[in-house]
């Protein structure tokens, strides 16, 4: 391999987060649903897939079911929050993230609670097991390409234009005879589906998951990616994923005294983030604003 295992690892994470970020952008940027519950879908996907695979289910089936199961939660979340919008939707979905986290932590019989799930098997497809990181990179790249391609087609299709129209002016769209509620369901379910897929990819890559992997710091990370990349821009989300995942890694090369190394890196990272926002308040490629 030309690139080192470390870079392979970073690329794998980047590809997993690209799926996650693009799928969040589908709901947040394109459809205008201020959804802070995305990390919960990600976690649900990871747990579902891990638990099923440990029970012996073939990987691809486990991954698809993980996506579908996350999708079911997407449906339930929209059903529950149907009437809310803007900040209120954001707060309610944030609450949803917290509730799912609490459940992962407390339903010990199913999720092993705080103990986490170790030893999640590496994916095995049609008898071929993805063992090394290089193989996993190719596998993740493939899934990422397919997922992003599907989401790209969706947002560029007439259906995608409806999503954008719904974000800009839902009333006007309904008067044109479009079922905006249906649109919201579909958008959220697609978004949750891909979040579930990326959760599955994450779980089987790291091979250990616990509830803290799907909590507020993770939520902040993916939200930051989407905002920095720009709402309603798949290109933006992809570039921003690379930037946001890579910046902390560049900061590792700084030669800092070991006593302050952790906090200095994180403070610098936060400062860079604020600087990017100040320079491009709509994100790198963003054109649209939410109210």
């Amino acid at each position: 391999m030309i690139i080192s295992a470390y870079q392979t690892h970073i690329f794998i994470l980047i590809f997993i987060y690209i799926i996650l970020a693009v799928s969040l952008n589908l709901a947040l940027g394109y459809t205008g649903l201020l959804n802070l519950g995305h990390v919960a879908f990600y976690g649900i996907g990871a747990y579902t897939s891990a638990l099923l695979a440990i029970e012996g289910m073939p990987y691809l089936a486990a991954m698809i079911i993980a996506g579908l199961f996350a999708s079911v939660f997407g449906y339930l979340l929209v059903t529950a929050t149907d009437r809310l919008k803007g900040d209120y939707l954001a707060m309610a979905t944030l609450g949803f993230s917290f509730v799912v986290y609490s459940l992962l932590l407390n339903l010990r019989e199913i999720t092993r609670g705080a103990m986490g799930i170790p030893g999640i098997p590496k994916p095995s497809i049609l008898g071929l097991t993805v063992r090394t990181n290089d193989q996993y990179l190719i596998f993740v790249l493939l899934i990422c390409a397919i997922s992003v391609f599907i989401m790209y087609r969706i947002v560029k299709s007439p259906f995608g234009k409806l999503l954008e129209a719904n974000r800009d002016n839902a009333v006007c769209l309904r008067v044109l005879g479009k079922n905006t509620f249906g649109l919201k369901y579909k958008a959220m379910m697609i978004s949750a589906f891909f979040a579930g897929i990326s959760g599955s990819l994450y779980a089987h890559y790291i091979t250990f998951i616990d509830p803290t992997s799907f909590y507020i710091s993770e939520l902040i990370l993916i939200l930051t990616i989407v905002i920095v990349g720009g709402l309603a821009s798949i290109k933006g989300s992809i570039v921003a994923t690379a930037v946001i995942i890579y910046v902390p890694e560049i900061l590792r090369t700084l030669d800092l005294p070991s006593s302050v190394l952790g906090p200095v890196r994180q403070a610098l990272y936060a400062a860079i983030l604020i600087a990017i926002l100040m320079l491009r308040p709509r994100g790198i490629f963003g054109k649209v604003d939410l109210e």
Partner: protein
Amino acid sequence: MSLLAQSIINGLITGSIYALVAAGYSLIYSTNNFMHFAHGISVVAAGYMVYWLFTLAGTPFYVTCIITVILSALFGLAMYRLIYLPLQRKGASNVILLIASIGILTFFQNVIQIAFGSGVKLIGYIEVAKGITFAGITMTLLQIVILVISFIIFIMLYQFMQRTKLGRNMRAVSNNKELASIVGINHIRVSDFSFLIGSGLAGVAGILVALEQNLSPLMGTNLMIKGFTGAVIGGINYVPGSIVGSFLLGLAENLGILVLPSGYKDAIAFSMLFLFLLFKPNGILGKKEGRFDK
């Protein structure tokens, strides 16, 4: 019996701390309408200010308090003027302000850790001792003071919002920014004041939290999440409402785990947040029409 009574008191003590955080937060939210999560760091910074001035430098306690509240207010104003306002002027939407505020929170958390270390700090102003027991209920003098102060803040904020011109202007901006600017209210000035007062309150909260609990760089996130939850439950747009909501949250958490395993404590809080938003998005006392998607 005393178990129940004590749990109610525990709930009130917890609630009063949430309320201190929520009051300032909701004051800022109501006039600016974006989620200023960095409010948590104002509280923490105030706590560390007390630690630095009082415990390390030996400044008299009441002088420390005054300096802390003033600096805290100015810190809030600086955040608004240096970060949020420039962003707003460039047309940034509320989601971006939210991310920026998380950036600020992370930045200062780490700055504090660099300056003071990651360890726990104690102010040491009040000796830790068994609380006063009365009719089977135990609480410390400080806790009584905190309860009373939250109550006073509640009354003062209520009076301030209803009686003073600035308070009225704040309510006007909170209800309708465009209309308020049409009638000649400068909403930037109102925002200035909301950050000053809100962050000043964070200063008060920081002092009391520092005395009642202890200090660690990361405590802001936890305080913020709970203060925010309390504010939403009570009505995030209405300051007195958010104080009531915080008390309710404290009570619900502490009474809830009398019945459920204590692991569900946070689950109770967050389920309450979720349910309130679904069924009563304006909160208990919130008056403003919720932003419903018709």
